[in-house]
Each structure stands twice: as C-alpha cells, then as structure tokens.
C-alpha cells in the first residue's frame, strides 16, 4: 500500500494542524500569513492530486479507492477550497480567530475528499460528518452576528436530523446485506429489493444526502444558511459540500444500491423536477443576492440530479462536469458577493443586509473587475454559450434527450430559460441602474479568487475537451461500459 496516494489528504491535514498551532503564537496583525499558508497547502494538495490523475488503487482493505471519479471530485473540492481560502484572506483580516477559520475550512475539505474516495459506507458516513461538523462551525463564525448564528443553528439542527436519518437508513442497509463495503453491498443487495425495509432505507438515504444537495423538500435550511453565514462560507457550502452530497449519492445509489434502481430513479425524478422548478420560481422574486444565489443553486442541484434519472454514462459525465462547472460558477458568484458585502460594510459597519440587490447598483463603475466577473458567472449559471455552464448543460440535457426523457429535458430547458430572468436582473442592476456612489478599490485577494474562477469558467467553456474527457472517465467508474 502506497501512502503517496494519500499525499493530498495528508498535506491538508498537516496544513490544518500547522495553521491551528502557528496561529496560537501569532499576534492578530500577523495572522494574515495563515491564510497564505492554508492556500499554499491547498495548492500543493491540488498539485499532488492533479499529478496523480489516472492512477487506480484501493487501500485500507478496500475502504478507500483512488479512481477517476474520486480524483475528479477531489479536484473539485480542492479548487473550491482554494478559492475559499484565498478569498477569506481579506475576510478574516484582523480577526483573532483566523486560525480556527482556516483550519476548519481545511478539515472540511479533507472530509469532502475522503467522501470522494470512500469505498465503504462507514468511512463515507464518518467523512461526511467530519465535513459537516466543520462547516457547522464555519457557518456560525460571526458569533456576534445574529444572522450568522441563526444560519448556523438551522444548518446544524437540520443537518444533525438528516445525519440521524442517514445513519438509520445505513443501519438497515447494513442489516440487510451484512456488510458496509460498497461493492459488497452491490453484490448482496438482492434481498433489499424483496424486503419493504429496502424502500424505507432508500428514502432515508435520499433524505440524508438530499439535505446536503439541498433537494426540495430537504432544502429549507439552505437559503437561510447561505444568506446568513459569511459569504465565503456560503461559497464553500454551495460549491463544496453540496458536491460532497452528490458524490456520496453517486456512490451509494448508483454503485451500491443499483438493484433498487427502479425505486430511487423515480424518487430522484420527482425531486429533480420539484427542486429545479421551485428554486427558479422562488429565485425570481428575491432581493438578497446571496439568497437569490442560494435558490439558484437549488435549481442547479435539480439539474445535476437529472443524472440520477437518466443514468446513462453520458448523463453521469454531464452531471459530474456540471458539478465542476458549478463549483467554479457558484463559488465565484458568492465570492463576488462577498467582495461587494465587504465593500458595503467597510463603508458603513451597520448596514442591515449588505448583500441587498440595491448595493449592486452601478457596480460596473464602482468595482469593474468584480462586476465583470459576476456578469460572467451569472451568464454561465444561465447557460450562455462559451461558458462552463453551457458546456455542462449541453452534455447533461442532450444526454437526457438521448435517453428519451424528452419531458424532463423540456422542463429543464424551460427552467433554465426562466432563470435567465433573475440572472439578467443582477446584470441590469450592476450596469444599467446608475448610482452616485464613487469608484472603490477592490480588495486584491477577492480579485485573485475571482480571476481564478473566471479562468476556470471560461476554460471549461472554450477548451472543453479535457474536462469532458475526464468527466466521462469518472462516469465510467460508476457505470462501466462506453458511451
């Protein structure tokens, strides 16, 4: 067994602990470097993961498996974490708890990465919880801010509830099959089908993962939490831990519980339609940008969920590619909002809701870079060509047609047309509604993060081939056989 395969996770673990320890001995002023340190660590981990692309291995008696799927999602998580860390450098400036913030973020990332490579439900559950616990704390990071606390509270309460549901469901799976190893479950899932408990277990699992993916009706915490918690954290939640739920669901349902396909396929069909429609329709009338983004990410989750329904290699590839693109787009959008919020608050500490749409007026003049990248992100989310969003929609929706789910594709298409309305509204506020406020200097860390995200979004849109290829490779892990 080769520990090198775990190098990224180990690097992150070291980084997290180092940040925590060094932070203890640093004066508040100097804590800035912790951010750089964390970002560096994440960067190294990312480099290691990329360098080990294509390796196939299993370790710790098959409880972990390194394959195209896990590698792909690890990259997704690391990228999001990187954006998160860089953007947070500015956010945590002058905060005495900086070290906690960064180490929590790093540990959350580790959890997500282990979920990505878990090959055993037990490991998966533990990693899942690790990520969740860390993010609970992050969500409530602004202890003195009621919104932040409320967000954390709701997130935590619903989170632990669904953790319980999840665990309960898992216990049944274990009981029926007598094992926790995912391949083994797949082999022994026979009597799950016959036994009605099987159905209960499936739905419980759906609820457990659906909470993280934020599928209607398990989504209700999401808008509140995304709106309440610090914007950078929202970016981590929306772009990172959401994907964790998706990859976990991929593994558990498509690999382990393929025998129960009939049941969960239908469940996901219903949830997908509900989620995308609800998300888009409610987003139409939002005035808080973060909340609007939250609902939009509901809708996006709905699209991705279509992959479970269509269940062809191409659809899964599309879903996986969509996960990556959404990581860039959504993280970028939230970070842009974070920049705006930072700007607003630095002008006036006690603004009621700094992410209100009105604060975006004339942003094109006030913060040109931020505004431009925000425009790119929202157009990408809306699926305008030459962006990551379009590319992944193209693959996902087209595969839906291919598999004959025309009705589903039509609903999805109409939804994404609808979404254009509220995305375009943001652009309208930024460019067409004038404001007397003057130009402000844009904080560098935010800008760097934004630029990285923009590059990502456009790269997937223009130079799509490698991304599509890797997504398809990852999909083959779930469903062997060509497309």
């Amino acid at each position, binding site marked *: 067994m080769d520990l090198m395969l775990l190098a990224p996770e180990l690097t992150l673990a070291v980084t997290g602990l180092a940040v925590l320890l060094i932070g203890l001995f640093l004066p508040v002023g100097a804590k800035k470097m912790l951010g750089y340190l964390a970002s560096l660590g994440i960067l190294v981990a990312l480099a290691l993961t990329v360098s080990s692309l294509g390796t196939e291995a299993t370790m710790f008696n098959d409880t972990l498996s390194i394959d195209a799927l896990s590698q792909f999602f690890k990259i997704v998580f690391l990228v999001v974490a990187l954006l998160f860390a860089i953007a947070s450098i500015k956010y945590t400036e002058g905060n005495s708890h900086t070290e906690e913030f960064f180490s929590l973020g790093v540990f959350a990332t580790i959890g997500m990465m282990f979920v990505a490579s878990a090959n055993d439900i037990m490991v998966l559950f533990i990693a899942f919880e690790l990520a969740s616990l860390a993010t609970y704390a992050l969500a409530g990071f602004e202890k003195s801010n009621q919104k932040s606390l409320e967000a954390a509270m709701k997130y935590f309460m619903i989170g632990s509830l669904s953790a319980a549901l999840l665990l309960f469901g898992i216990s049944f799976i274990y009981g029926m099959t007598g094992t926790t190893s995912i391949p083994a479950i797949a082999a022994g899932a026979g009597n799950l089908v016959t036994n009605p408990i099987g159905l209960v277990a499936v739905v419980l699992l759906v609820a457990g993962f659906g909470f993280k993916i934020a599928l209607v009706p398990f989504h209700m915490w999401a808008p509140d939490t995304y709106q309440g918690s610090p914007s950078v954290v929202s970016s981590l939640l929306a772009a990172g831990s959401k994907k964790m739920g998706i990859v976990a669901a991929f593994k558990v349902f498509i690999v382990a519980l393929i025998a129960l396909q009939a049941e969960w396929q239908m469940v996901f069909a219903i949830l997908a339609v509900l989620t995308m429609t609800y998300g888009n329709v409610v987003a139409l009338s939002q005035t808080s940008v973060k909340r609007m983004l939250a609902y939009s990410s509901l809708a996006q989750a709905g699209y991705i969920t279509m992959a479970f329904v269509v269940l062809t290699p191409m659809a899964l590839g599309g879903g996986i590619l969509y996960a990556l693109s959404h990581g860039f787009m959504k993280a970028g959008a939230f970070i842009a909002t974070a920049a705006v919020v930072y700007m607003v608050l630095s002008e006036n500490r006690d603004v009621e809701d700094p992410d209100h749409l009105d604060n975006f007026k004339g942003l094109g003049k006030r913060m040109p870079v931020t505004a431009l990248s925000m425009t790119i992100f929202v*157009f990408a989310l809306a699926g*305008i*060509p*030459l962006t990551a969003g*379009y590319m992944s929609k*193209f*693959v996902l*929706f*087209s595969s839906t*047609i*291919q598999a004959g789910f*025309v009705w589903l*594709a*039509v609903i999805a*298409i*109409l939804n*994404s*047309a609808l979404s*254009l*309305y509220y995305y*375009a509204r943001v652009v*309208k506020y930024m*460019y*067409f509604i004038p404001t007397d406020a003057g130009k402000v200097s844009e904080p560098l860390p935010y800008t760097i993060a934004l630029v990285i995200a923009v590059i990502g979004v456009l790269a997937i849109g223009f130079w*799509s*081939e490698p991304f*599509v*290829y890797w997504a*398809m490779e990852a999909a083959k892990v779930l469903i062997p056989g060509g497309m």
Partner: protein
Amino acid sequence: MLPILSLIVLIPLLFAALTLFTKTKEQARVMALVATVAVLVLTLYMYINFDSTIADNQFEEIYQWVPSLGINYHLGVDGIGMPLILLNAIVLPFLILFTWNDDRKAPNRFYALILATEGAVIGVFAALDFFLFYIFWELTLIPLFFMVSIWGGPGKHHAAIKFFIYTHIASLVMLLGIFGLYFSAWEMTGTPSLDIPALLSQFQFIGSGVMKDLIFLALLFGFIVKIPVFPFHSWQPDAYTEAPTAGSVLFVMLKIGGYGIFKVILPLLPFTASPNLMITIMAALGAVSIIYGAFLALAQSDLKRMVAYSSVSHMGYVLLGAAGLVSLSVSGAMFQQFSHGLIMSIMFMACGVINTTAGTRIINDLGGLAQKMPKLAVIMVLTFMASLGLPGLSGFIAEVSVLAGSFVNLPSYVIIALLAIVITAAYHIWALQRAMFGVFNEKLGTIVDINGYQTLSMGIIAILIVYFGWNPSPVLDMMLTNSEQIISLMAVMGV
C-alpha cells in the same frame, strides 16, 4: 490560403474587445470603422472568389474541438449565407458613419457592442457545426440586450428583458431539436457529430417519423421566433422600437432566423413524416403575417413602430416563399431577406434622424418635414417606395418572385398575400403624406436636415437598393443555385 472566414468572424469580435479600452468617442469610432471596413474588404475578396455556380460550401475551415462529443470548429459559406454576410459587411461601415457625430454616453461600449453583434451574426452564417452555430446564435443576444438596455428608449428595460427571454426560450427549443438530430444520427452512425451538412444528410434515415417531426418542429419554432412571424412576433415591435437607431439596424441585420429556414429547414422538409402538413404550417404563418403585419402597421401612430410591424409583414414573404418550393420563390425569399436588410436599415436611420431633430416619432405630430429636410425626404420617399414593393427597387424583385413562384403550389395563400399589397401601400403612403408632406407643423421648432455623414451612408445604401432593383443577379444567382439544389431534393421525394 488564409482562413478568411475566421478572419471575418474574429476581426469584429477582437476589435470589439479592443474598443472597450478606448477612452474617447473619436478613438472608439475609428476603431469600429477600421474593423468594419476590414470585414467589408475581406468579404468582397471572398465574394469575388466565390463560385456562384455550385451549391456547395466554400472557403471551408475545419479543426477538431471537442472530439469526444463530435464538436468541430467548422466554418464554410454557400449561396445562402454569402449574400447575408455581404449584407452585414456592406451596411455596418455605413452604420458606423451614420452614428459618426452622435453624442452618447460610453461610446466605447456602444461601438464595441456593434462590432460584437456583427461578428456573432456573421458567425451564424459561417458556422457549419451546430455547436458553433448555436454559440453564435446565442452570442447575438447579449450585445443586443445591452444595446437596448443602455441606450434604448423609455421602455427599454421591459423591451430588453422581453426580447432576451422570449428569443432565448426559442433558441433553447431549437437546441432541443438539435439534440434530437444529434443523437438520432449518433445512434445510426455510432459516432457523435454535430456537423451541419452531415446531420442534414442523415436526417432522412431516422427511423421514427414522430421523432423526425418533433425535431423539425423544434427547429422550425426556434427559427420563426427569430424571424419573427405571426404569432411569435410580440417581442419584436417593442425591441425594434425601444432600441437606439443603431440597435434597430442591427436587429434588421439579424437575418439568422430566415437563414435557418433555408439552411436547415428546407433540406429537412421533404424527409419529415408529413411534409405537406409542414408546408401548410409555414405557408399559413407566412401569409397570415404578411397581411397581419400590414394591418398592424396601418394602426400604428409611432413611425418607428409602424416600420417594425411592416418588417413583420415583409418577413412573411420569406416564410411564404420558402414554403413555395419553387426555385424562383425560394430564391426570391432569400433575396427578400437581403433587400429587406438594406431597406429597413435606411428606414430606421430615417426614424432615428426624425426622432432626434423633431423630438417625436408620432406621425400626426409631424408634418411638412419635406420642406425642412429635402435630402431626407428624397431618400425616405425612395425607401418607402422600395418597401411597398415598387418595381425598379430591390423589394419588388423579391416580392414578385415570391408571389409568382409560390402561386404554383400555394395559390390560396398567395391570394391572401396579394390582398395585403394594397394595405402595405396604404400605410406607407399615409405615413409619408402625414409626416413628410402637407403643411409644416410649426410646433416642431427648428428642424435641421441630415448631416454629411448621414447623407452619405443613407444615400449609398439607397443607391444599392436601386442597383439591386435593376440588377439582382450579383446576389440572386448564387441564391438560385442553392434553391435549385434544394428543390431538386424535393423533386426526388416527390413533395
């Protein structure tokens, strides 16, 4: 040999980006002029080397892009696209000249958007890969959306959003159709490909007739909303009216809907499960929009809005002619697109001039302008005559070809269209009489005639209208070649 099509598409886009960084109006407009003139020169070069006796795609360029999905960077132009590229290349420099002396906020963005639109539109005409086609197709939306939202009239926001969403939905439906075609072909050949010629040729082998019709209708819907024709036109009057003059002209240059009809729909038509039904749909929509648009134009009080509705009526000819399925009618419909582009661009320029100098476009508030603006009056009379289909001007060639050609197969629809001709004449003449002739309305204050640049740009396009009215062959021949090829397909299928 040099990748001329790529240049024609990319130069405007590139210059659009550069223009964003210019500081003053002077720099911006010069950049724009340089870019458009460069495009014009290249296009003329291409036009000269274009062989109008063959219907194949010429100046092809093909590079792999996303092989795993069968996506290629594939450009090429045939007798359907060439005239439209020519149209854009010709009109745009004069559009720049027309706006030469205007003062407006953020000129750099303004000219950048104009260039971006030109690049995108030409891209649609040059794309031979559905992926690329759709990209350019959508790309045309964004600059126009900004154009309307920033420099538009009072109702600009509503108009912009409406146009954006409405046509976006249509594009997405079209995209569904493309998907359907893509995968049906994929299943047959086993290899993914979005190559337009390939897919068009494989359409006929699709097994299920329902699938064929669904694909066809989805594509058709996408195209006719963009044209637009009754009853999917309601985005158009708002957008055309609220847009700034340059924006309206760009809208007119946006002939991608009709292009799709000829390039995609007609080759598929004979192989659909129920061709005659499809023909009926197209013919009916075409004929109805001809007469409907005419009546609506008659009811308008705003000059620009009247022009917008007249465009609905004129675009009806495109669909009717396409459904006529006689080489004369099809080529006439193509020529209608070309001449309509020329005519409408002057019409909108005139509306813009009147609006700026007289401060209103309400026809009844105007009156006797001809006394104050003789130059404009001459050009306007000529253009209005062209628009109502006066012989000797380009509009007539198109209309008579469409009517005569279509009558062979669709007599009843043509008769409807014929009824509309009187109405068409009526609203043009009434507008002329009320706005330009009669006693000068003193309330309008001081009226100045069009300046040198405007006279030049409008005048030259007007001369082109006359020229093509007497000698359409330079563009009509290649159209004929392609339409004959299309019709031969029909003959094979006995449609």
